[in-house]
């Protein structure tokens, strides 16, 4: 048993142990959330890093889901047993920033004299993870943005084209229904798509203070924007049978309903592009397009989804050097290509993207169409309302939205009432967050 009161002998043992260690490689840990096939690719990336050099050895531990990865890291952090690097989801960014327990990657790379061209990162991606001064706090990694997936054959049969506006979208639904399609649109309520990305593309606020970037005393505003109209439309389409609700709980989720040609349209992350390709397996022709906007609004950029890599505080310089080397390794165009080829995620740097374009990566199936995600991300330069979201307790706020929207879809209340309730409850969460970190400011 490793039971020890520190004594001279124990100290001696520790010294010998670390001396023996020093001759070995520097070891450090990385906890990631992606599971299944995506997790395997992360693991392969780690193996490639270990083979690429002999100084460091990274141990990558899958934590089976984004939520677990963050939550287990926090538990470990409180016991001083945390990994050096952790993959944290987009929505947890504000929580991590306020914790203060990280080593900003911008700073770290500078400290270790590793030259990274920060301007090379797509602004729609970098802004999400940057401080108010524009310095990246975490390293963009698996990045995606939502797309509209559509069944080309079904649309042709109904005599319509892929819609660019929501008004056209409704016409397409009607035409599909008229052509005999049971489920024109397989819908699953998603804050990420219906609220967050929708608001970005329409350049309307989700919350005050420019979506929380300018202070902790923010309030949600989405019950006052065009988002309400959109959700009311969804409710109406549901009532009129133009869309069917397809969630994992119901067996087939919206993506799989699409891939099995049950439903003609679905909205999902570009990261699904690879999986949809595998699932459809040539059974029908399909394509992707940018998410529609309402007529009379000017389309703006969407923002990044997915996760970024955070370097946590409380580690040794040697471990940080290893982490820096690993992040540098991930930022090479070769690594980006490896990652984008094996998953549906998009490159995070302009160089990485250009390299792929030059190689003709996006010209042919199965990768064709993925460049549209970058077009969506870079459609305009990010403005104050389209930089991203910086709201504490956002995971809970997402669930408030989902629950209330479900209630409205069930017919328990109107959509406006539902969104009002969701906003007021989410404001309670923001309040509590601001009080928990009273006297502190967002970096």
């Amino acid at each position: 048993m490793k039971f020890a009161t520190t004594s001279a002998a124990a100290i001696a043992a520790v010294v010998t142990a670390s001396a023996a260690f020093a001759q070995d490689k520097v070891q450090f840990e990385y906890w990631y959330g992606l599971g299944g096939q995506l997790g395997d690719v992360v693991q392969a990336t780690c193996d490639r890093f270990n083979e690429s050099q002999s100084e460091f050895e990274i141990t990558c531990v899958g934590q089976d889901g984004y939520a677990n990865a963050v939550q287990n890291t926090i538990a470990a952090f409180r016991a001083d047993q945390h990994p050096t690097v952790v993959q944290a989801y987009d929505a947890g960014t504000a929580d991590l920033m306020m914790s203060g327990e990280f080593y900003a990657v911008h700073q770290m790379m500078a400290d270790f004299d590793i030259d990274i061209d920060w301007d090379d990162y797509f602004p729609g991606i970098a802004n999400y993870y940057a401080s108010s001064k524009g310095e990246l706090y975490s390293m963009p990694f698996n990045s995606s943005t939502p797309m509209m997936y559509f069944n080309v054959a079904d649309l042709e049969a109904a005599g319509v084209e892929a819609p660019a506006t929501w008004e056209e979208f409704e016409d397409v639904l009607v035409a599909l229904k008229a052509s005999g399609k049971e489920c024109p649109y397989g819908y699953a309520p998603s804050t990420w798509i219906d609220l967050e990305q929708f608001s970005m593309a329409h350049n309307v606020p989700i919350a005050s203070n420019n979506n929380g970037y300018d202070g902790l005393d923010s309030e949600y505003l989405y019950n006052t924007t065009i988002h309400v109209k959109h959700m009311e439309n969804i409710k109406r389409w549901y009532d009129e049978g133009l869309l069917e609700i397809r969630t994992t709980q119901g067996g087939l989720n919206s993506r799989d309903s699409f891939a099995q040609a049950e439903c003609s349209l679905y909205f999902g992350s570009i990261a699904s592009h690879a999986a949809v390709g595998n699932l459809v397996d040539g059974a029908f022709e399909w394509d992707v397009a940018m998410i529609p906007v309402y007529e009379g609004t000017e389309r703006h950029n969407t923002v990044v989804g997915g996760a970024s890599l955070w370097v946590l505080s409380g580690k040794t310089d040697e471990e940080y050097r290893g982490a820096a080397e690993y992040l540098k390794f991930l930022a090479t165009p070769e690594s980006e290509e490896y990652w984008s080829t094996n998953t549906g995620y998009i490159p995070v740097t302009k160089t990485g993207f250009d390299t792929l374009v030059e190689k003709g990566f996006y010209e042919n199936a199965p990768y064709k169409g993925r460049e549209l995600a970058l077009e969506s991300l870079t459609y305009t330069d990010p403005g104050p309302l389209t930089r991203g979201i910086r709201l504490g307790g956002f995971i809970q706020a997402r669930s408030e939205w989902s629950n209330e929207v479900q209630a409205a879809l069930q017919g328990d209340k109107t959509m406006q009432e539902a969104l009002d309730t969701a906003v007021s409850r989410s404001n309670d969460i923001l309040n509590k967050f601001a009080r928990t970190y009273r006297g502190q400011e967002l970096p």
Partner: protein
Amino acid sequence: MRRAFFKNNWIAALVVAPQLLVIFIFFYWPTSQALYWAFTLEQPWGGGNEWVGFENFIFLLSDDRYWQSVRISIIYALATTALAMGMALILALFADRQLRGYKAFRIGLIWPYAVAAPAIGLAFRFIFNPSAGVASYLNMAFPGIWDPVMNGSNAITMVIIAGAWKQVSYSFIFLLAGLQSIPRSLTEASAMDGARVLRRMKDIQLPLLTPTVFFLVIINITDSFTDSFGLVDTMTSGGPARATNLMVYKIYEDGFRGLDYSGAAAQSIILMILVIALTFLQFKYVERRVHYT
């Protein structure tokens, strides 16, 4: 109650010490820390906290979402316990008659217990799936009658059935073991006196089984309060519109997914008090009537 005791109390101290030590380290110490959070606003990353007294509790008790969660947790606990115990009791009593095929039945009734909760959740999701599963045949006959994805009461019914299913084999194991330890001579003597099978069940087997039944009722109720996480997580994720947001799932969601440690800690305290109160009541009123020796 017992009247014959051993006197060597130092031996008593010695035999209870190991478990007390383990529960002190792995239960009471961590729990007391969590309980402390309930009276503070704890920063998840451990940066510090602020004492807020009963504020977290006041917020909870004035929150209708919380009361909804309490209400459905109680419904869930009572319904699963009644369903599972009723079924297990009937099956055990009849299996204990040891008619032909008894061994096969016994194995068949026991082994489902070995299946992990998430697997049960997935299987039941499949069965109750309104459009694809077994339940889709019901919807073919009566369109729109069953939709646990959008209908809250359908969803909680589904979770209750799965929860009860999970407990049937567990209860059956203990009830059958309990029945088997009733001396055969007792039932045989009664049979000689002319008591028929059903009458023997009522007059001899059931009363002798009461300690086991009491044990199972307590375990089933506490279990349905505290061990429903895996099922809810795989079947409904608490939805639709919080219709299956059981207390333990809500605590996990708010606290560890949502990083609101303090709110979750306050909920934990209330959950604990509630379960303790329920158990205490049962001990006080039911155990008196439990027939020992």
